[in-house]
């Protein structure tokens, strides 16, 4: 029997050594998010889990760059972009990219050696050993030489600089094999102590040294293989910085930010590396001595004109292309398979549904002459448009009339309103709200289409791939049944709502302080639904967030204040975890009515589960005490009907 593999789910092959799969699936548009200055100043990359940091770093390793260079015709756009960035030349890689994973052992040093300087010294020594080993191995890869032939490697200090020469001696001399042995022994010595099941003797603690010497050594020395200089600029790619202790991270960054270093260094971490205060406050280490790239917010802002949703669609196409070719034997595009005709959403109940909303509008307007022209204009337009568009237009008019009727001051002599008044009073937000209301009231599909799927990715590659994988699974089911893999709007809507529900339900299991995070979000959802579904749609297309006054946010950052505020500490932790794991975004200093707010928007993929719109904009602020109370008041029942919202469409 033929097996069908979902290319969005399969992560194993690209995690492993199948560099080809990784490179084929790499959406090169993401490179446009990188800042101009890449090589001289250190680059700090930050994102939530799944933001794409590791993939970005991996692209710049010598293994990736060499493979791309060897198969230039297969990776034309990548070659083009990497050449423009200066990582690749026509003769091969221009940098010696070396990946260093910081999630290995370093944090435990504090537990074995103790806090303070002694622990930092061992940290530097272990990291030096690993940087050295990785650079030597990569030099052999770059030269296409057997990775065991370390005897062919030589390190030569430029201009006989005294300090670098001394460091080289300390590292075992100029021969690559001798330096490698020093590094391996150093690593082994530290790891033995870390992993010993029996107590370590009083004098047996691991040794250390007071700086990250390898940075200085490889700044002032060049690597030769088989007597020939490599001629590549070292690029140290530090990944998973969030796994270091705070003092290790700060000490490492301090060294990486030194201006006199003559090698490139990139450092990636999750938001969780920041203290909760920094996650909520943002702004710990930003400065002129480095470049900072926060992936999700850069994607949201569309850095240098990049439309990140387009990048996501490109990633999806790259992944799906081969599988669709193989399984369907027809040249399908994944994105096109998600497109649908709007009028099919409403069929076969189109006429009935349209009539109902029209009758409601007429009843709302009554005999009021004021709305006569509005109704006539919509009637005319509806007769010429499809049933879906007509239904939404009537629903839009219903909102406008409700708004007009709610105006506080009435005219003495009411005059009919002109159709232009309706256009002025409406807008994209109202139309989106009308479409949402119309779909919800009539049990129609709403969350579907390629743009919606890209939006639901919420600028996070992992989240987007997971959702696309769910949709692709449905396509595979159709293919197995020998049918077209095109997904109807209803199927997409249903898959998306289930994915949304899954994201919601797994929060407690995936996130630190997940139960409190869920409680916090549920209260925001409660407000959002209350406000979104008011007949006048006052914050069209709806409310998808809450906000805290900036000065109250500042109070929340104060431990002494949190201690006095019931629920303060829990709110602080829950909010920090929600931001770090991309369940919400926090936008600081948003001015509204002469006050500054921190606006907290829900992750878009949570919104379908609660029938909320995907458009950004609406939020309702709450006082700090109220928000903190959400977490402590166990008697407060937040809308059991929200928890139990049905995920099914109406038949």
């Amino acid at each position, binding site marked *: 029997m033929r097996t069908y593999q979902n290319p969005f789910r*399969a992560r194993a092959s690209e995690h*492993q050594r199948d560099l080809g799969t990784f490179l084929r699936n790499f959406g090169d548009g993401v490179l446009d998010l990188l800042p101009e200055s890449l090589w001289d100043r250190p680059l700090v990359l930050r994102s939530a889990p799944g933001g794409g940091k590791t993939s970005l770093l991996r692209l710049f390793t010598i293994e990736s760059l060499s493979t791309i260079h060897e198969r230039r015709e297969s990776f034309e756009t990548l070659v083009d972009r990497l050449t423009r960035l200066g990582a690749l030349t026509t003769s091969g890689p221009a940098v010696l990219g070396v990946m260093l994973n910081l*999630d290995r*052992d370093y944090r435990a040093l504090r537990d074995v050696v103790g806090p303070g300087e002694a622990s930092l010294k061992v940290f530097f020594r272990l990291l030096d050993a690993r940087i050295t080993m990785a650079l030597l191995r990569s030099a052999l890869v770059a030269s296409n030489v057997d990775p065991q032939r370390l005897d062919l490697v030589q390190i030569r200090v430029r201009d006989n600089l005294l300090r670098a020469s001394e460091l080289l001696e300390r590292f075992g001399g100029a021969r690559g094999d001798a330096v490698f042995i020093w590094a391996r022994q150093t690593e082994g010595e530290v790891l033995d102590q870390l992993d010993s*099941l029996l*107590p370590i003797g009083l004098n047996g603690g691991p040794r250390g040294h007071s700086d990250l010497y390898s940075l200085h050594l490889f700044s002032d020395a060049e690597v030769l293989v088989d007597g020939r200089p490599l001629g590549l600029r070292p690029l140290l790619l530090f990944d998973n910085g969030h796994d270091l202790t705070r003092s290790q991270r700060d000490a490492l960054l301090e060294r990486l930010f030194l201006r006199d270093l003559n090698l490139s260094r990139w450092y990636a971490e999750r938001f969780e590396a920041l203290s909760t205060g920094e996650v909520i406050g943002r702004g710990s280490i930003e400065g002129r001595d480095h470049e900072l790239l926060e992936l999700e917010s850069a994607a949201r802002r569309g850095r240098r004109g990049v439309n990140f949703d387009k990048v996501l669609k490109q990633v999806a196409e790259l992944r799906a292309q081969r599988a669709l070719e193989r399984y369907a034997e027809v040249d399908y595009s994944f994105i096109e398979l998600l497109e649908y005709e709007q009028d099919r959403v409403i069929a076969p109940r189109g006429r009935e549904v349209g009539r109902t909303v029209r009758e409601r509008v007429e009843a709302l307007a009554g005999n009021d002459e004021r709305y006569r022209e509005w109704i006539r204009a919509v009637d005319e337009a509806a007769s010429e448009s499809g049933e879906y568009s007509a239904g939404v237009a009537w629903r839009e008019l219903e909102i406008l009339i409700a708004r007009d009727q709610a105006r506080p001051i009435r005219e003495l002599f009411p005059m009919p309103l002109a159709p232009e008044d309706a256009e002025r009073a409406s807008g994209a937000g109202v139309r989106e709200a009308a479409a949402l209301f119309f779909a919800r009231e009539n049990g129609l599909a709403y969350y579907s289409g390629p743009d919606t799927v890209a939006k639901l990715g919420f600028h996070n590659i992992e989240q987007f791939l997971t959702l696309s994988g769910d949709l692709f699974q449905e396509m595979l089911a159709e293919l197995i049944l020998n049918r077209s893999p095109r997904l109807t709007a209803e199927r997409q809507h249903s898959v998306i709502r289930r994915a949304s529900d899954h994201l919601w339900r797994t929060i407690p299991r995936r996130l630190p302080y*997940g*139960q409190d995070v869920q409680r916090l979000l549920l209260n925001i959802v409660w407000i959002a639904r209350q406000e979104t579904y008011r007949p006048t749609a006052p914050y069209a297309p709806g409310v998808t967030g809450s906000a805290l006054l900036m000065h109250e946010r500042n109070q929340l950052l104060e431990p002494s204040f949190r201690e006095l505020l019931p629920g303060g500490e*829990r709110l602080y932790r829950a909010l920090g975890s929600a931001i770090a794991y991309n369940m919400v975004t926090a936008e600081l200093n948003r001015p509204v009515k002469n006050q500054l707010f921190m606006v907290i928007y829900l992750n878009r993929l949570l919104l379908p589960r609660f029938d909320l719109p995907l458009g950004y904009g609406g939020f309702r602020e709450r006082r700090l005490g109220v928000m903190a109370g959400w977490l402590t008041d166990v008697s407060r029942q937040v809308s059991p009907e929200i928890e139990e919202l049905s995920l099914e469409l109406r038949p």
Partner: protein
Amino acid sequence: MTLHWKDYVLAYDEDVITHWHQACPDDRPATFVLGAGFDPRALVGLTKFLNLPKPGRLTIVVLELPEGPHRGEAHELAKINRGVLQNLERGSGATFRHVPFPDVADRLHAGLAISRQLHRETLIPHDGLVVVDISALPSSIFFPIIGSVLAQADEGPFAGDLQVLVCENPEIDRLILDEGSADPGPIAGFNKGLTQEASTAAIKVWAPIIGENQGPALDALFGYLTPDEICPVLPFPARNPRRADDLVMEHRDLLLGRMEVEPGNFIYAHETNPFDVYRRLADLSDRYRTALAPLGDAMVVVSVHASKLLSIGVLLAAWECNLPVVSVSPSGYVIENAGALLGESEHNRLASAWLLGEPYR
């Protein structure tokens, strides 16, 4: 390959007490190590142990566990356990030693820190009966503790009997869920070269023992390890003969989709016999190392996502075959209803694995 625990001693229910009698006759000293947390199974073994007529010196080592926030169901359950423990302490005549939870930066290092402290302060003696009750201890804590006793026996100083006790209750397991799945990594003491720079080039085979509701932990470890091959271990034979199938159904997206596990890679081990798991893992390690030797270093990495009882088998295989053990640290626990948890105590079942001492001399 000759396995150290090819012949083993394993007892359930009332036979556990017989084991205690056999291992600790007359005035031989006994030490009972347990974790004092919120788990309602924490004190089941100790209560029975203290009921034995025991003329010899009896030391109870209570490992304090982090309580987490002073709220919620876990906090209430921990309060109940504290009260029961105080009563036992008052009426037993045994010496109680409380070991506070260490201040650690790496939560997977806490067990090793505790273990080193136990040996430094000779809270685990070199003779007599040592019972380690793992019912309320996370694997990151009890692996290094038991591993250290095995190491001491190997190197000479420990000459006593070691029994590992567990109070099993699958119903309670189902009601306690981990909150958050952070910081995946090797359990300290069981790194076995996993994090060495050289291991980045080694072929990694991962054998997770699969259990219910463990998707987030499996996913976190998969991301951490990026293994070349995955051999999930499923419980069969099991009381519910469909349990292995149910587990594959529960984790199908993860195992078959995301991790691309080959259908032929599944391993089956007895649901309630840790020595069966031990044999399977030892065999797996031996086969892969031999088969992959021409391609370079191969490393079999294990992790436990199922019952405590099976984790004993993982521990023994890791100890004997030098296998790295990886785990994740939850930030807390999700307990919907403490009352329901307490109501499940009728399903408690004691099991004891006799690992060192008389049967093996």
